[in-house]
């Protein structure tokens, strides 16, 4: 008995040894930078010449029009989320139909954008929407437009291209979540509803959406989180342009840190704003998740 307890204790200690590398790295690359970024956000100057300035960097945000622009753009890009998620939900419920023909093929085709690397698909969209690009040529050959549309030179059209690109890339991804959720809903519920004469639409609003609500919430938070951190598309497709019309918070942080004379303290202050928004959302997610 005593020997057994000793062994049990030994194993628990050994367990810590198994956990140590993983935990130590997360501390180093997540928690340490988080604390460090806050301290950095209270300073001004370059690497070897930092002075403490208190909350001045945060005060400066209010007067910085480029910060306002990047915050505005980031919020604009959030608009796409409900549309994309509705599309994903419709797709998932279609793809979940028992007797749907070509189900496997449709699923593969709908999921396929998930496999493309961020920069690769950005480059494809960039050339498709360039002035002489494929989209303009198609529209002209179909007689829908007479002159080329300057997709990437107009602020709102450029934003639209980013929104289209994001929708293309992430709709299938969210469909996977919904599909896996739908598969765990008992089929007999739908059969009962069908017998009661409930329409497909009624079944969607009264059965599917309530049953999927935890997963819908997860995808909403995931998408908001991803959009708040949007970087690749707006750098690779539009290069923040035209005239910073598509710059996001992450782009601005990068620009301040690595494209100009570095302003680490100020960039860190902006990164803390992003952190606070994301943290609030994550807390909401956890709160609602607990209720499950």
């Amino acid at each position, binding site marked *: 008995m005593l020997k057994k307890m000793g062994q049990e204790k030994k194993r628990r200690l050994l*367990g*810590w040894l*198994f956990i140590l*590398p*993983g*935990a130590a*790295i997360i501390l*180093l*690359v997540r*928690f340490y*930078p*988080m604390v*460090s*970024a806050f301290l*950095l956000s209270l300073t001004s100057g370059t690497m070897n010449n930092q002075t403490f300035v208190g909350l001045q960097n945060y005060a400066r945000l209010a007067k910085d029009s480029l910060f306002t622009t990047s915050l505005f753009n980031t919020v604009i890009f959030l608009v796409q989320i409900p549309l994309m998620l509705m599309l994903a939900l419709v*797709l998932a419920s*279609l793809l979940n*139909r028992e*007797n*749907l*023909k070509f189900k496997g093929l449709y699923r*593969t*085709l*709908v*999921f*396929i954008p998930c496999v*493309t690397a*961020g*920069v*690769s698909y950005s*480059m*494809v969209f*960039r050339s*498709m929407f360039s002035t*002489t*690009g*494929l989209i303009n*040529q198609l529209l002209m050959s179909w007689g829908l437009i007479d002159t080329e549309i300057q997709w990437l030179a107009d602020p709102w059209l450029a934003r639209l291209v980013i929104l289209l690109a994001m929708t*293309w890339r992430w709709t299938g991804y969210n469909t*996977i*979540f919904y*599909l*896996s959720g739908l598969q765990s809903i008992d089929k007999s519920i739908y059969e009962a509803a069908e017998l009661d004469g409930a329409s497909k639409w009624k079944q969607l609003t009264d059965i599917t959406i309530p049953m999927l609500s935890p997963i819908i919430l*997860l995808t909403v938070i995931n998408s908001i*989180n991803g959009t708040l*951190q949007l*970087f690749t598309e707006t*750098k690779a497709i539009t290069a923040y342009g035209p005239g910073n019309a598509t710059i996001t918070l992450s782009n601005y942080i*990068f620009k301040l*840190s690595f494209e100009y004379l570095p302003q*680490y303290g100020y*960039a*860190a202050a902006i*990164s*803390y704003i*992003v*952190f606070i928004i*994301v*943290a609030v959302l*994550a807390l909401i997610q956890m709160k609602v998740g607990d209720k499950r």
Partner: protein
Amino acid sequence: MNKHGSFSRSRSGNDIPSHVFLIIVSVISVFPLYYMVVSSTNTSVDVLKARLLPGTALLENLNTLVTTTEFLVGLRNSLAVAIVGTLFAVAVTSLAGYAFEIYHDKVKDFTMSFLMLSIMIPQAATLIPMYLLFAKMGLLNSVAGYVLPFVSTAFLIMLFRQNTRSFPYEIVEAGRLDGLSELGIFVRLFFPIMRPVFATAVIVSFMNIWNEYLWALVVMQSPDSKTLPVVLAGMTAGYTVDYGMMMLLATISTIPLALMFFLLQKSFTAGIAGSVKS
């Protein structure tokens, strides 16, 4: 009558509007990728003319890509970081996730919850301190520096921990009776039985490392250490852009991910949806 007819059609799930909708979505999903692959076989001039048929310039594009760009350097670096990073990530996070479940006690459960908090830390917020820290540690422009943030993530640890719950504890006990060490049980019993979970973790990890762009820009700044996304994005910097060559590189960058997708579609979708089950 008509109403009843449409009712039974929709019941079988094969009504025409649904199929039309699915076909349109499928075409839109595939079209940009089709355009990318086809363009990689066309000359830049043809790409600009929006030619949508396969051409004969594939080898020419490949030759331009190899001889005039940093493609080979990028490919070497991307493969190195993705392979090394994935191996370490799977080893480190599987061991941790396994231990959190098999040897769990109150302190370990608390530690896991604490590590989960790291999921809410946005990448942009860690960028500058990490860059400064890695510069001090001499990790800039190195494989180790690039992969370190990917080697341990709370998401992967969670994935392994959740799945360890379905691993019968009797097997652990049987392994002990057979005289296996604790690490031996993990390697010889847990790994072979839980192979699908490992496959999922490989996919998630490889994709993240292979696709990363922002961190690559920050940590791999020297010309010798560029990864493929950085090389690809840099191609638009010049005065004239060779679109055929660019599309070829975009295609090549997608091949490893597409291969994984087709070989492991089940694990792939399970991996993406993995967090749902947690």
